[in-house]
């Protein structure tokens, strides 16, 4: 009986993960594409300068961050996939979304300052789900993107 209850709970969580998780992911990708299009006029680069000469009056630190978590389906899918090895596609999309979201938020902050460029951008990822007790909780990670926003002399 216990086994059946556990199986039902597992299937329900899996179904929620498949439907809600996928819908979330699709929506997030759409929002990201729209936001990235909107912010295309702000150039972010990991270079130290813009390569356009030094005509900037002021620089300011800008940071974008997001904490993103896996859904139940991704967890199961990754668990199965790691038996045979290879790319864990379900995590790849999760990490990609997190990083793109952090960059979008950094650029939004740069726009509020009236900047046209963000230079010396650094990306960081920190897992928030590692646990000293050794059990593996649901995976979540923080992504941050930060750099120096440059405001052009008007």
């Amino acid at each position, binding site marked *: 009986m216990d086994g059946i209850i556990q199986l039902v709970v597992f299937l329900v969580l899996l179904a929620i993960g498949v439907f*809600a998780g996928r819908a*979330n992911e699709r929506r*997030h990708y759409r929002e990201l594409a729209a936001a990235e299009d909107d912010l295309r006029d702000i150039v972010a680069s990991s270079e130290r300068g813009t390569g356009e000469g*030094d005509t900037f009056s*002021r620089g300011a*630190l800008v940071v974008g961050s997001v904490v993103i*978590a896996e859904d*139940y389906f991704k967890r199961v899918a990754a668990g199965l996939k790691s038996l045979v090895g290879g790319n864990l596609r379900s995590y790849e999309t999760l990490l990609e979304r997190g990083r793109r979201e952090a960059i979008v938020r950094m650029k939004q902050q740069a726009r509020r300052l009236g900047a046209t460029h963000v230079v010396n951008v650094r990306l960081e990822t920190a897992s*928030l789900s*590692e646990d000293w007790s050794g059990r593996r909780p649901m995976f979540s990670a923080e992504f941050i993107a930060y750099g120096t926003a440059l405001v052009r002399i008007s």
Partner: protein
Amino acid sequence: MELTTLETVPGKTITRHLGLVQGSTVRSKHAGKDILAGLKNIVGGELKSYTDLLNESRSEAVDRMIAQARAAGANAIVNIRFSTSNIAAGAAEVMAYGTAVVVS
């Protein structure tokens, strides 16, 4: 206080280096927020409460770094870097560090 990830401050020149300054915070998750985050984990996606939590920690780390730089007589911090580490279940350290300088 000018803050930048570059080695220089745009539009200014560095006249003195005052060395490394850093600020950090260790903050634990709120139990109530943790339960909500646990539920959110089933459907995945952004954990808004944690994003906010870490952002608050980061501003505090930056403020502490600025206080240190100010005490050293600096008016800018260059080459700023951030790092986040998970030091225990439910607690994260956020650190900011950079080089305090005098610019003119």
